[in-house]
């Protein structure tokens, strides 16, 4: 007999959504979460709940992102109702671009998605400058337009984390902070023992989800599982807090609920390095100001760098070990967006011990060709 139905390794955006979803399904759940020493992408993201442009290379991922967006409103409302924490979800977003070339390539991307999804495709509109200006009066004269789908938006990802943590514990999950899982060992009875760095037994569970972001790679390699993720660094700028003027998000600019504008985000593959640098930040600022000139008048207050958990094709990796059934390892970019499906659907897969076959496309064996 194991201590828990499910042990989740990692309490970032993925692990928190799974922990909450499992506790909500009545599963006896524990979440082990390493402390501030770990790379914690959940604390450094941009807060978009974003559908468009996703899944150009995999229609199933486009459909999955769409499904996530469709569940988000109720997901956010349930969290707020249970915790009193407002996650500030606003379903309003335009992919506003700076140049004609970018707009062309964004349209081509949406066309690929539409073709791939077939009759499951969602519609999108291309707004020209004039139409866009009516909803986004502060765009630069040079902005050619935007893409609008009705599915994109943004939230406060830190309040999302807080609400998930608070409510999973209210639902009986054990959240164990500052606890790094050093090893997962299959037991004779089919469950797993989880041990800490110093070898002490942390607990046992019938099933295990490894959702430890960058910390997962070495942990599952010991069990013969290849988790193909690498770090993709993004740098984000934060302005002074100002009065409310923009409710929608673009792919690169959004105003937070306390008035700051976030400008993002660069993309660089430089290993496990979260440091910011001036040329990169200047380029982020330059691009955003080229879309919204008023941003140039705001004082910057801070900047940060964080590491995307990136797979080779940018799409999620969901897998259950064949050698050790009950051992799941999940990793993806866009963990904010997908938190609704992770909480409400993936948690169900794990509680039932089976990833439905329609989601086999997300198995990393797709990279083996």
């Amino acid at each position, binding site marked *: 007999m194991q201590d828990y139905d499910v042990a989740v390794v990692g309490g970032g955006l993925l692990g928190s959504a799974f922990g909450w979803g499992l506790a909500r399904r009545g599963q006896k759940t524990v979440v082990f979460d390493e402390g501030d020493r770990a790379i914690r992408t959940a604390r450094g993201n941009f807060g978009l709940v974003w559908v468009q442009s996703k899944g150009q290379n995999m229609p199933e991922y486009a459909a999955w992102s769409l499904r996530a967006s469709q569940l988000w409103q109720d997901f956010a409302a349930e969290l707020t109702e249970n915790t009193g924490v407002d996650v500030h979800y606003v379903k309003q977003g335009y992919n506003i671009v700076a140049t004609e070339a970018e707009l062309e390539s964004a349209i081509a991307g949406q066309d690929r998605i539409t073709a791939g999804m077939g009759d499951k495709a969602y519609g999108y509109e291309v707004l020209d400058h004039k139409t866009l200006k009516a909803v986004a009066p*502060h765009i630069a004269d040079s902005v050619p337009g935007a893409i609008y789908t009705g599915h994109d938006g943004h939230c406060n990802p830190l309040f999302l984390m807080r609400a998930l943590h608070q409510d999973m514990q209210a639902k009986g999950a054990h959240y164990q902070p500052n606890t790094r899982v050093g090893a997962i060992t299959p037991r004779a009875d089919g469950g797993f023992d989880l041990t800490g760095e110093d070898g002490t037994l942390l607990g046992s569970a019938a099933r295990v989800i490894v959702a430890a972001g960058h910390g997962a790679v070495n942990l599952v390699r010991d069990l013969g599982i290849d988790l193909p993720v690498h770090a993709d660094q993004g740098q984000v700028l934060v302005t*002074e*807090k*100002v*009065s409310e003027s923009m409710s929608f998000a673009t792919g690169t600019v959004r105003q937070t609920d*306390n*008035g700051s504008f976030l400008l993002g985000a660069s993309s660089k593959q430089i290993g496990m390095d979260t440091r910011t640098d001036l040329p990169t930040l200047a380029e982020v600022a330059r691009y955003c100001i080229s879309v919204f000139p008023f941003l*140039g*008048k705001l*004082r910057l207050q801070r900047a940060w760098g964080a590491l995307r958990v990136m797979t080779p094709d940018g799409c999620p990796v969901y897998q259950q070990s064949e050698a050790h059934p009950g051992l799941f390892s999940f990793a993806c970019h866009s963990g904010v967006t997908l938190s609704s499906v992770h909480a409400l659907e993936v948690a169900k897969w794990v509680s039932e011990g089976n990833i439905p076959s329609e989601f086999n496309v997300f198995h990393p064996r797709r990279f083996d060709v």
Partner: protein
Amino acid sequence: MELDATNTPKTVRLSFEGTAIEAPAGATVAAALLAADIIAFGTRPVSGLPRGAFCMMGTCFECMVEIDGIANRQACLETVQEGQNIRRMPPRIPTKGQGDGDD
């Protein structure tokens, strides 16, 4: 902290929203305001709730004030000066040309 011949800190006179306050030379503006029982340095731009110094070490940006006509000063990082004129942050309406830029 600057001391005089009798080892007493020198006093600096400044004002907050027109009200005179005194502070020991070398103190930060945030410390001077707090010592004068001024806890709310300003209000939050969106919610309108009061805001004041939180970390006292330059990281939270909750202590913003206008000093001698210049907005966006961190009160916890500025040292009091004789005659300094401290005000709450003016409304920051980003799209109305009220930023720090030059147009």
